[in-house]
């Protein structure tokens, strides 16, 4: 049995760890609230934009735009959005597990240090690496977006997909691959979503659509807005997921530390009591012997 001094030392160290995890939990909790609000508020806007985009894309078959036409995919372009820091549970591990399933040659762009580290460690092609602060600014995301669009236009990548952690609720976040370019793939995703929700898609209206001003002008505006907004929103979702995941992980750690301290304290008391009993026995034995 361990002696009392060792036990005391362990209790102290576990308590220290619990203090740190508890502090991290509180910080994450306050950040989580804000990040979740941002992510959820932006959702209807982004979804409506996607819906408009798809109904527009349907009816513009004869209009040639590099973003609308699928081309032969020689290399997929994938934007990976991860966290900068660790200690956030299985968040990044799950994300990378999804990443490993990506097939075919692909070029990667990363947002977040963990993604960049993973990509270079697993020797995948890393085209660029961006960092985004905790308080997401549109300007920060824009740099990444412009780089991606540029690469797509130049033909360095033939698709644009985003791998990120979709925020469902505080306990559940799932890694998702969201295809952005070309738009053909987007349509199938929207349809699937509609079916899942049991909604009748508004684009069932088969009549000719009217455009004001011309379709080209609208398309250009919408396309730009769409891609920027989507990526911005994805980053918001990823941040919300990160903070939620960290909050939960730190809460579990704090709770575990508490049970550990309780167990150790019980052990410590037992050892101490045993030592006292032992001593009394020895003293009484000695007095009998005299």
């Amino acid at each position, binding site marked *: 049995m361990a002696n009392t001094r060792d036990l005391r030392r362990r209790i102290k160290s576990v308590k220290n760890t619990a203090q740190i995890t508890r502090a991290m939990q509180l910080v994450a909790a306050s950040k989580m609230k804000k990040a979740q609000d941002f992510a959820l508020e932006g959702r209807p*806007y982004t979804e409506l934009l996607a819906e*408009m985009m798809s109904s527009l894309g349907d009816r513009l078959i004869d209009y040639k735009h590099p973003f609308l036409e699928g081309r032969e995919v020689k290399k997929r372009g994938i934007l990976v959005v991860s966290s900068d820091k660790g200690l956030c549970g299985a968040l990044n591990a799950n994300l990378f597990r999804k990443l490993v399933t990506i097939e075919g040659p692909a070029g990667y762009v990363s947002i977040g240090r963990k993604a960049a580290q993973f990509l270079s460690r697993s020797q995948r092609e890393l085209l660029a690496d961006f960092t985004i602060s905790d308080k997401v600014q549109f300007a920060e995301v824009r740099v990444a977006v412009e780089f991606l669009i540029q690469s797509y236009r130049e033909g360095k990548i033939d698709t644009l997909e985003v791998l990120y952690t979709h925020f469902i609720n505080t306990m559940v976040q799932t890694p998702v691959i969201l295809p952005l370019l070309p738009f053909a793939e987007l349509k199938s995703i929207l349809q699937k979503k509609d079916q899942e929700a049991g909604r009748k898609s508004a684009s069932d209206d088969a009549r000719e*659509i009217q455009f004001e001003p011309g379709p080209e002008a609208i398309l250009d505006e919408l396309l730009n807005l769409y891609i920027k907004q989507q990526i911005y929103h994805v980053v918001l979702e990823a941040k919300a997921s990160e903070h939620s995941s960290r909050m939960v992980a730190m809460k579990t750690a704090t709770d575990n530390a508490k049970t550990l301290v309780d167990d150790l304290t019980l052990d410590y008391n037992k050892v101490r009591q045993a030592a006292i009993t032992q001593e009394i026995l020895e003293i009484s034995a000695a007095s009998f012997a005299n």
Partner: protein
Amino acid sequence: MPLILEIVTPEEKVYSETVDSVVLPGVEGEAGILPGHVPLLTMLKPGELTVSKDGQEVVLAVDKGFAQVLGDKVSVLAEGAIDIAEIDLTAVDEARERAEKALAEARALGMDPAEVEKLETIVRFSLVQKLAKNRRL
């Protein structure tokens, strides 16, 4: 067949109800939408959006954006939208002054264009709100 009107901004879903008709501030003039309208996708200019429902009219100030009419659904995607009854002119003026000041600074320092754009949006939307409100008073 009633119309379903949905107005969404980056911050929130401002409006989602069934209505009788809508007048949109399109870039090529105002467009009145009644049930059974031809499918339409239009860009919106900053201005007033009028909703009539059960014989009553509600006017909203909207910033630039897009509107889609498909089937019986009208979806409006705008940078900003607010019911003119809720516009507080003094607060709007203050916000505009702050944004203009920040904008002047930003231009002098050569700040990031996206941030400048954001400030310009605030200034523009404040003006729209003011105009809309004053006209109805």
